[in-house]
């Protein structure tokens, strides 16, 4: 006699469940107590054991079906026995053909990726608003569906049915809405990529942060001198960003451990120092590359920067402008930001966050002085370097920035 496979009432608060995966195929032998399928309930995804021994019948509730607990979702039959006809509530479809092979079945590990990730709050909200979860693209970690996603989706949906279902003459259609309206913005590809890469970086690279205040008096004088000179030669306005790219490229040369990446439990040191500069554009954040910046003079860096920024703003960057970066600089000083922590630009090991140059009180020879200073904050992937290594790099960088002429004389 065929044994019914019920969607089990796994807990007294659980009312329905969704079939996530059959771990056996039609016709497979099964024994009592063996994992048979995976069901997702309001509480968790659970492996359900076979209620009896025999062979998995030919009619099964398909993956994705949501049914109330204690619904029959298939049968276990004896050898040669005809599988009874399966009828699901509300005429949901049934698998009658042999179901697809599941190569990863029983391994359990890979099935998790296939499970729809939904926060419990989102699931409840979806239920309340009657939103179909399969139509939602989750924006949480690993595509997990969050309550905001449900609300955003529902807000988008509401506009259509509301006009139909509102009573004639109703002046307050929004009363029918059970939540505050939300405005949805499509994001650019750039924004999507940024979101993915930052999530990946912040989720996988363990970050730590080092902060240091740098005296920019000398750099300040040097820049003033260049500006005077630049006007004469029509060389343009040398910026502090140019000086910083210059200084970082030289410091990195002395500290190759930071010009590296972590992959498959190994450190890979890049042979070239290719510095990315984070640029805010109408389409989003982009970080074009100064290839072999350590071989460029400060004036060459300046010209490259002017060129890259202009093309970035006009969406004219070429693919080769964006590849093979090994270290990133992000400067928010022009917005009056004193200091901030950036997220490492994967697969790189570190990113330097630069704040504004401002006159700040510093102690020089036991006397309080006002000096133009800058806060540098280095975010580092701890898998690549330890704090002391990163601190030594930052020390070198500080020395270069505080004595730029020395480095200039050495190089130019």
């Amino acid at each position, binding site marked *: 006699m065929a044994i019914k496979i019920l969607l*089990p009432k796994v*807990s*007294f608060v659980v009312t329905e469940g969704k079939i996530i995966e059959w771990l056996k195929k039609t016709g497979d032998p099964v024994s009592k107590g063996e994992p048979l399928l995976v069901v997702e309930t309001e*509480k968790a995804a659970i*492996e359900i054991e076979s209620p009896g021994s025999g062979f998995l019948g030919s009619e099964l509730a398909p993956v994705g079906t949501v049914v109330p607990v204690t619904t029959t979702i298939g049968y276990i039959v004896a050898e040669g026995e005809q599988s009874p006809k399966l009828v699901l509530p509300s005429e949901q479809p049934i698998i009658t053909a042999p179901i697809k092979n599941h190569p990863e079945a029983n391994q359990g590990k890979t099935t998790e990726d296939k499970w729809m990730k939904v926060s419990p709050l989102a699931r409840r909200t979806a239920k309340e608003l009657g939103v179909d979860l399969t139509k939602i693209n989750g924006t949480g970690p690993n595509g997990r569906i969050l309550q905001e996603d449900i609300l955003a989706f529902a807000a988008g949906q509401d506009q259509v049915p509301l006009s139909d279902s509102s009573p004639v003459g109703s002046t307050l259609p929004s009363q029918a809405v059970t939540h505050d309206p939300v405005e949805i913005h499509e994001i650019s590809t750039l924004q999507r990529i940024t979101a993915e890469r930052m999530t990946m970086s912040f989720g996988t690279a363990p970050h730590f942060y080092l902060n240091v205040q740098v005296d920019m008096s000398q750099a300040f004088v040097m820049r003033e001198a260049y500006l005077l000179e630049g006007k004469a030669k029509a060389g343009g306005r040398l910026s502090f960003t140019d000086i910083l790219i210059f200084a970082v490229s030289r410091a990195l040369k002395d500290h190759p451990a930071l010009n590296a990446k972590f992959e498959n439990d190994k450190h890979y040191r890049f042979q070239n120092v290719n510095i990315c500069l984070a640029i805010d554009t109408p389409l989003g954040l982009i970080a074009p590359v100064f290839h072999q910046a350590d071989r460029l003079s400060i004036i060459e860096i300046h010209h490259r920067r002017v060129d890259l920024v202009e093309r970035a703003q006009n969406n004219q960057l070429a693919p080769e402008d964006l590849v093979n970066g090994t270290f990133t600089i992000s400067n928010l000083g022009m917005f009056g930001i004193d200091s901030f922590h950036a997220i490492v630009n994967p697969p790189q090991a570190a990113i330097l966050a630069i704040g504004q140059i401002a006159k700040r009180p510093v102690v020089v020879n036991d006397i309080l002085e006002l000096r133009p200073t800058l806060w540098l904050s280095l975010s580092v992937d701890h898998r690549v370097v330890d704090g002391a290594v990163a601190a030594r790099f930052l020390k070198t960088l500080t020395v270069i920035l505080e004595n730029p002429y020395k480095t200039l004389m050495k190089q130019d």
Partner: protein
Amino acid sequence: MKLNKGKFSEIFESLLRIRRFEEKAIDIFSAGKIPGFIHSYIGEEAIAVGVCSALEPTDQITGTHRGHGHCLAKGMKMDRMMAELYGKATGYNKGKGGSMHIADFSMGVLGCNGIVAGGIGMATGAAWGHQILKNNRVVACFFGDGAMNRGTFHESVNVASIWSLPIVYVVEANGWGISCSTEDSIHITDLSERAKSYGIPGVNLDGCDVLAVHEAAQAAIARARSGQGPSLLICNALRMRGHEEGDPQKYRSKKDIQKAKDNDPVTRFRSYLLENEILSKEEVKEIEDRIEIDVNAAVQFADESPYPDPVEAMADMFVVED
């Protein structure tokens, strides 16, 4: 160990009765017919059976939230147990106790209860009562390794020790306090070491070996009955299923679960009986068939029994003094 064939047979029946009863209860729970929770004792049966088979019928026990095994091992009947799980009027506690609060004083079952370590104080109090009444009774108090970190454990064992109360503390060390491993919650590996601090004997046992548990329980019960005070039996037996039915056990490795299944106390004792030719295959089969019939009859009894009359809701709930 010297036991007669009848005793071996009785122990095997008791193990199997608990196992089949619970397997059936789990199926019925999955089908939605049993309200509340089911905390399965599967994998730990040898502890209740080993201890209760060494008790006299007039002796008493306290159980836990995982208490079906304690009740059945002490001799309670499957039909009224099943009816209690269903919440039926014919249940041992008229459906008011459910899975976690079955009690029958006439059988010496002072009660299972849903509070971790909740039974320890009651059992100790009962043992004190027996000492005062000089009635020669012993109490076996069952609780889990998780309960060993509750204050009631310390207070009760301490007082039982200083007053030499007739009690045996039986720890069902299944390795988990819901989802917290014992390893993470107790900083000693041999839990019986705790007995030293109370000046009482403590033994560490294979809780899947029903004969080992029986033998140790016999000694502890004899000691308690002769007025020498309590003992601590640590019976190690991993949970074969989740904390409660429906627990996906994400906190536990498949290896740990498999380890429990590989050490199934019922299978082990069955093999022991057959290999040592204590029971024949036919005799084992006869027992298995009989229990199958009993379990099905218990389910039928529970199915056909009426639910309690709502007007009875407050009956038996409070003691009214004359």
